[in-house]
């Protein structure tokens, strides 16, 4: 074969540089497992900042129960000691103590929303009754100065949820609670690392699991339950790793077996392996160069490269057997297949969907590398006549080739258009869609059960949805939050909201603090209040000009967000399932507030993307038709597009039947089906020797069906969806191939 020409040399060098970059990027690579990381960026800056911040994903809660308090405390101490370097454990008693001391300083100017309403409406009787009950009851005043706060507004403010842990008792290193006459302990902490940093997360999970095993051995009745994004991230990463290795391994095994059956030689296997290795390494190198933290799901979807790369290598090997002329005759078809496939992936690159962009970069680069391997290396690694198919395969291929005249003589190919009409009608009538991102991933049931246990007892679990308030200053944020208090209280009374937590409930605005201390002082001449003060012999302290501010309060960062000079405060919500609408209405009634649900927002984005993808799919069909028209003519190209519609429709209809609805990933799979089926169509309608086409297309389709058929057994719903769709589409493309054979013969005439 010829020496490399200058352009080929430059392409080869660039390719080598790309591969060598792996040595630098691979050791430093970090992989993301978060579902949200796979989704498009939020629309607004503050939403992006909120997602990047990921405060909630660092939270870890561990529940210990099932034993007496002494054993629970021993277990808690062991767990805390084992994970001390990876997590900052909360010290509830000290936090509660600091807050209590702070509130005492500002007693008399802090009042609950209910007491503020009473002060505003002059309902002194109920305020005085409550104060007297407190004074003459067994519960102390919590260290609050009666002179500073004669109505005892501040103890009531603290008890309304400002400075405590609900019914849980803050202990030095954990919270203690009672449930059904049984004590439990809750350890809460914040990870020092992002929950989706795989190595750190795995090390953390392993350390905790080892400690839990040891404790369970010592105390068999001890129950330990975990809650936190890190546990779901580790489970997802382990599942993905298992699936990649299992399905990747099985696919590889299937390819090896097929090649042995076909050729009884190691050479085809080595050449196919070389194509796969170079294609995968190139795809990975490009992926790591472009994306700082690619998603593990991208690698699962990228297994589609196996099918196409195997297809290219078969075409290459079989063409080399036909000599230089045969090889050169095959190359334009391979390029046409590559070009049409790249059009499909171009669609993914344009969409603002990180996961799909990563799949596009990996597979697109891998396809180019597979083509370059075949074009540049195969003629140098294989001689004509070096490969011989086994007799069985030769018989099968000859049998299929002999069927050509029968296929051509029958009006079989004219069945294509009625079939297309029926399938498109079926798609229109039968399909429905589901864009709920929570269905994309499924954590193990045992972990979900643990999460539910912790959620029930901790009282600290907030819905992902929140109210976001905008303001120019922190004081304005607090004042605006306070405007929402009455409406939020009403929603809670109407059971549209279980609970809510806002910064302004812990630190009232300065305006409110001034109003509270002015409010009760203005009532000193109220007869009942005057009598109360006189009975106690209580002088009224002078008003203060010193006010509590958020900067003094520990642990309020989770409520504040500043991005691009704009300030936001976040009101956390505990919503009954599926009841965001009243909160949405509340936000719409105030121009400074917005109801934000990351999940709801993600669902909307996914629905929008699914719509875009459907249009891109149609556009890709049109582009492919235009491109094919240049090489195959209008009639053949139209027939090919009909064939592609059959493959795509079967892919979507089978997915609809299996899943009950279609999701975004079925459409991504359809795009890959389009790429593969186009490749088959290009070769079936080419001048390449029919025996070679039958062998290459048959092998490619069989290996792809096997690889993606296996994916449909995945535990991860999106991967299973993807597998079902690609399997159905490629199988349909293979079975519908005879519909194109007439076109081949017509072209040859």
């Amino acid at each position, binding site marked *: 074969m010829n020496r490399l020409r200058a352009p080929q040399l430059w392409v080869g060098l660039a390719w080598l540089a790309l591969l060598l970059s792996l040595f630098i990027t691979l050791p430093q690579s970090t992989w993301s497992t978060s579902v949200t990381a796979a989704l498009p960026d939020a629309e607004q800056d503050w939403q992006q900042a909120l997602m990047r911040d990921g405060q909630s994903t660092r939270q870890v809660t561990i529940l210990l129960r099932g034993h007496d308090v002494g054993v629970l405390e021993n277990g808690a101490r062991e767990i805390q000691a084992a994970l001390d370097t990876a997590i900052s454990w909360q010290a509830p*008693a000290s936090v509660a103590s600091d807050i209590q001391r702070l509130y005492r300083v500002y007693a008399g100017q802090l009042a609950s929303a209910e007491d503020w309403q009473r002060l505003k409406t002059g309902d002194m009787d109920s305020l005085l009754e409550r104060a007297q009950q407190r004074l003459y009851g*067994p519960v102390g005043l*919590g*260290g609050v100065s*009666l002179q500073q706060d004669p109505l005892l507004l501040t103890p009531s403010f*603290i008890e309304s949820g400002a400075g*405590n842990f609900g*019914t849980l*008792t803050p202990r*030095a290193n954990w919270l203690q609670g009672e449930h059904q006459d049984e004590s439990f302990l809750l350890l809460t902490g914040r990870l020092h690392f992002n929950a989706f940093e795989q190595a750190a997360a795995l090390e953390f999970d392993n350390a905790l699991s080892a400690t839990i095993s040891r404790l369970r051995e010592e105390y068999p009745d001890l129950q330990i339950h975990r809650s936190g994004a890190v546990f779901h991230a580790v489970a997802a990463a382990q599942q993905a790793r298992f699936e990649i290795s299992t399905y990747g391994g099985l696919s590889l095994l299937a390819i090896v077996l097929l090649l042995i059956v076909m050729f009884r030689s190691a050479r085809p296997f080595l050449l196919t392996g070389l194509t796969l290795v170079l294609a995968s390494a190139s795809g990975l190198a490009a992926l790591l160069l472009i994306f700082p933290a690619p998603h593990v799901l991208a690698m699962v979807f990228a297994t589609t490269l196996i099918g196409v790369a195997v297809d290219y290598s078969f075409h290459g090997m079989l063409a080399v057997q036909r000599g230089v002329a045969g090889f050169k005759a095959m190359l334009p078809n391979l390029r046409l297949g590559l070009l049409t496939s790249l059009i499909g992936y171009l669609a993914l690159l344009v969409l603002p969907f990180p996961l799909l962009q990563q799949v596009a970069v990996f597979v697109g680069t891998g396809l180019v590398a597979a083509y370059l391997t075949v074009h540049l290396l195969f003629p140098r690694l294989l001689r004509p006549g070096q490969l011989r198919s086994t007799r069985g395969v030769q018989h099968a291929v000859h049998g299929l080739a002999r069927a050509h005249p029968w296929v051509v003589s029958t009006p079989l190919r004219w069945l294509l258009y009625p079939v297309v009409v029926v399938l498109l009608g079926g798609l229109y009538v039968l399909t429905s869609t589901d864009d709920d991102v929570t269905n994309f991933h499924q954590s193990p049931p045992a972990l979900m059960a643990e999460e539910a246990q912790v959620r029930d007892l901790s009282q600290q679990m907030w819905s992902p949805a929140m109210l976001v308030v905008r303001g120019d200053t922190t004081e304005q944020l607090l004042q605006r939050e306070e405007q929402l208090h009455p409406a939020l209280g009403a929603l809670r009374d109407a059971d549209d909201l279980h609970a809510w937590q806002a910064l302004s409930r812990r630190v009232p605005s300065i305006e409110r603090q001034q109003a509270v201390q002015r409010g009760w002082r203005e009532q000193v001449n109220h007869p009942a209040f005057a009598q109360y003060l006189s009975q106690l012999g209580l002088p009224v302290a002078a008003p203060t000009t010193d006010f509590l501010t958020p900067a003094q309060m520990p642990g309020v960062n989770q409520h504040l967000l500043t991005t691009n000079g704009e300030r936001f405060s976040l009101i956390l919500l505990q919503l009954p399932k599926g009841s965001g609408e009243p909160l949405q209405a509340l936000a719409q009634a105030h121009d400074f507030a917005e109801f934000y649900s990351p999940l709801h927002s993600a669902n909307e984005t996914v629905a929008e993307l699914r719509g875009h993808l459907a249009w891109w799919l149609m556009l890709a069909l049109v582009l492919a038709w235009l491109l094919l028209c240049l090489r195959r003519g209008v009639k053949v190209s139209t027939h090919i597009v009909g064939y592609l519609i059959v493959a795509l429709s079967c892919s979507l209809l089978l997915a609809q039947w299996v899943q009950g609805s279609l999701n975004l990933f079925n459409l991504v799979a359809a795009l890959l089906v389009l790429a593969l089926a186009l490749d088959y169509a290009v070769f079936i309608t080419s001048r390449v020797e029919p025996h070679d086409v039958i062998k290459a297309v048959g092998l490619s389709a069989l290996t792809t069906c096997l690889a993606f058929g296996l994916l449909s057994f995945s535990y991860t719903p999106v991967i299973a969806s993807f597998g079902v769709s690609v399997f159905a589409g490629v199988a349909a493309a293979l079975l519908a191939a005879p519909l194109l054979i007439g076109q081949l013969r017509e072209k040859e005439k």
Partner: protein
Amino acid sequence: MLRILFITCLGLFGMTAASAQDITDDEVQARLQSWHALSGTFAFEQVRELAGFSRPLRSRGELIIEPDSLHWNTQHPIATSLHIDAAGVHQIKNGERTSIEGSAFVGQVLLAMLQQDYDFISEHFKTAVRDDCIDLRPRESYMRDHYQQIALCGDDQLQRIEMREADDSETYISLQEVIDA
């Protein structure tokens, strides 16, 4: 020589203190066990001396002690009713119960004192015996925000509770069993 004497004294003091603590703990348990367990209805009088106030606040009423809860009914100078259990303090008004949030610990302390729950007391307080009283000092900082010290006093049963709060306010509660006629 002086150094040896000092170290010897220090050692002896340490040993004495350690053995005194052991004896104190045993005594506390013995004292609590020697008291009759409280159950039924008691009349109480409460005197609260607020820090910085010369005029004490006096109240009286009825206390009903049940196995897992207390009913604290103040009758004078105002009528108020509280239900206290391990979950906290609940206000009873017109038959409706309203929980006071964050009162779980206070509820548990009151319940443990009146039921003479040694396990709870020793878990949360350092204890010592003084005359006819058992002194309790909170072990954890959060508890010290509520109470500096509590004393449980009585001869053959708990008769008096003395509580010094974080701001030096003091509350004295005396109990007298009500015998049905």
